[in-house]
């Protein structure tokens, strides 16, 4: 395991992400590629915020639901109450964060598999409400349609593919910047300590519950933000957009890149979103392919793709040790 890097180093990475995002429209303005790129950035805000929670040891299976809460909240406030997207962008994210306080307070009383199950149950409840209840409001199984594009801000009309891409890029770079900073700060140091040994952290004076709840609420805020964008980007919402399948993909995207570093989700999301596009013709079978990829990653790169160099180095060192040392000794740590 590589030691965590201290502050300062990640700044270069953020600049790189921002430059790459800014460079894309120069290379191509093809609407399909812009769509894929926008999806990558949207997924990236989700996986980054999911990893924030993973860093304290939570596998929050309801993360996608908070995206849904942001999405439905904004869609309804714009279509029913006539609010501007630029206001509901923040209201939707705040709604997700506010709901995360009571939900997190209950779910975080338990940990490990129990936490996994409670959040999964909650996400199903949310999905069923969107699908089966208040049909006049949420649109039921046929979905919520007629959601407008974001509209004008500062003299710019955000209704073309390019403008939407630009908006998502700004949101995403902002989120990445904030989360990278947080991760390399004292807060991130303590948050990751909670995952490594929560009882030790607690006896050293770290309020483990508060740390977990803070990351839960902050992650939900970011998920809500992505959800609002999603609603006005796709212009139609279905309950299945926030169901088990996209949640599983979110886990796969994050885990494949690796959760040990903030750059894991970046690598994982870019690669896997592109892979998902290439596998589009497989329809629902694509999840089989992702399952296989996940299993292979767990077997051969359990710390994720970004940790591959150090994993390989360690493996090599171990192999070399075995070659020179008497049988059995080389495996000693």
């Amino acid at each position: 395991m590589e030691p965590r890097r201290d502050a300062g180093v990640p700044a270069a990475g953020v600049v790189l992400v921002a430059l790459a995002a800014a460079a894309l429209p120069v290379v191509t303005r093809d609407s399909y590629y812009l769509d894929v790129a926008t999806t990558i950035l949207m997924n990236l805000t989700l996986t980054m915020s999911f990893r924030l929670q993973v860093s304290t040891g939570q596998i929050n299976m309801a993360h996608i639901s908070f995206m849904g809460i942001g999405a439905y909240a904004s869609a309804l406030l714009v279509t029913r109450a006539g609010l501007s997207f630029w206001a509901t962008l923040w209201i939707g994210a705040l709604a997700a964060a506010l709901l995360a306080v009571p939900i997190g307070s209950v779910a975080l009383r338990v940990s490990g598999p129990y936490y996994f199950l409670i959040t999964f149950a909650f996400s199903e409840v949310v999905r069923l409400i969107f699908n089966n209840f208040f049909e006049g409001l949420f649109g039921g199984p046929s979905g919520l349609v007629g959601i407008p594009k974001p509209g004008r801000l500062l003299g710019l009309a955000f209704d073309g593919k390019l403008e939407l891409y630009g908006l998502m890029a700004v949101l995403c770079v902002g989120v990445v910047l904030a989360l990278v900073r947080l991760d390399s700060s004292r807060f991130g140091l303590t948050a990751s300590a909670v995952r490594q040994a929560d009882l030790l952290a607690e006896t050293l004076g770290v309020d483990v519950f508060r740390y977990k709840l803070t990351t839960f609420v902050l992650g939900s805020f970011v998920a809500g933000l992505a959800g609002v964008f999603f609603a006005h980007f796709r212009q139609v919402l279905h309950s299945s957009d926030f169901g088990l399948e996209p949640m599983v993909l979110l886990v796969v995207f994050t885990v494949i890149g690796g959760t040990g570093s903030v750059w894991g989700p970046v690598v994982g999301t870019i690669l896997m979103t592109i892979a998902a596009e290439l596998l589009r013709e497989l329809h629902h079978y694509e999840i089989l392919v992702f399952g296989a990829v996940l299993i292979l990653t767990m077997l051969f790169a359990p710390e994720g793709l970004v940790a591959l160099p150090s994993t390989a180095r360690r493996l090599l060192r171990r192999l070399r040790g075995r070659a020179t040392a008497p049988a059995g000794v080389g495996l000693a740590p």
Partner: protein
Amino acid sequence: MLLELRGVSRRFGGLLAVADLSMTVARGAIHGLIGPNGAGKSTVFNLITGVMPLTAGEVFFKGERTSGLRPSAICRRGIARTFQATTLFREYTVLQNVLVGAHLVAAPGLAPALFWSGTYRERERRAHAWGEALLESLGLGSVAGQVAGQLPHRDQKALALAMALATGAELVILDEPMAGLAAQEKAETTRVLRRLREQGITVLLVEHDMKAVMGVCDTVTVLDHGVRIAEGTPREIQTNPAVIEAYLGAEEPGA
């Protein structure tokens, strides 16, 4: 009186692991807690530090009731501990481990961590310098940048103590600080404990090495089957018939 236990009990199903235990730890003392295996020593530590709830009784620290509080809240009052099976943040460097321990001294907060204000960076610099000095004083200065999980056993023990001290605790509770150490390393640990006493830090420790306990402790409390059977200076304990009786078949104190 720094720490006081009043009628503390802990029941595990049908087993009364700690039975109506009352004891006090004086400020500035090195206080030993000994007893045969299964006497309830580690349970007492878990009860004091809030890792386990009490079945009955109360714990007071500096005159304030701490029983019922969560471990983090108890640590915030000034009690830190190490574990028998040395626990560390294995993926972190030695310095990062200590910085997590120093959490209370340099409380982070979410907003400063996000915006990296000048005061935040200044505080971080001071925390780093302080952590390095602490490591230096415990002989860990040269391994500050190493990953904790790969340290030799002796350094892991020393690091666990460093983390407890980093919280700024007035009372450190050490669960077998000498276990698995060589004679020379035990002597070094003894020196460290005496130095802590000079600095005004109170130490409560469980230890199986009787020679070390008798050599370093000011007061020793003896537990057997969850009951306090003796308390006094090492000399008094070594000649106490009840203690010798309890240890019969095991090793004799002072042997």
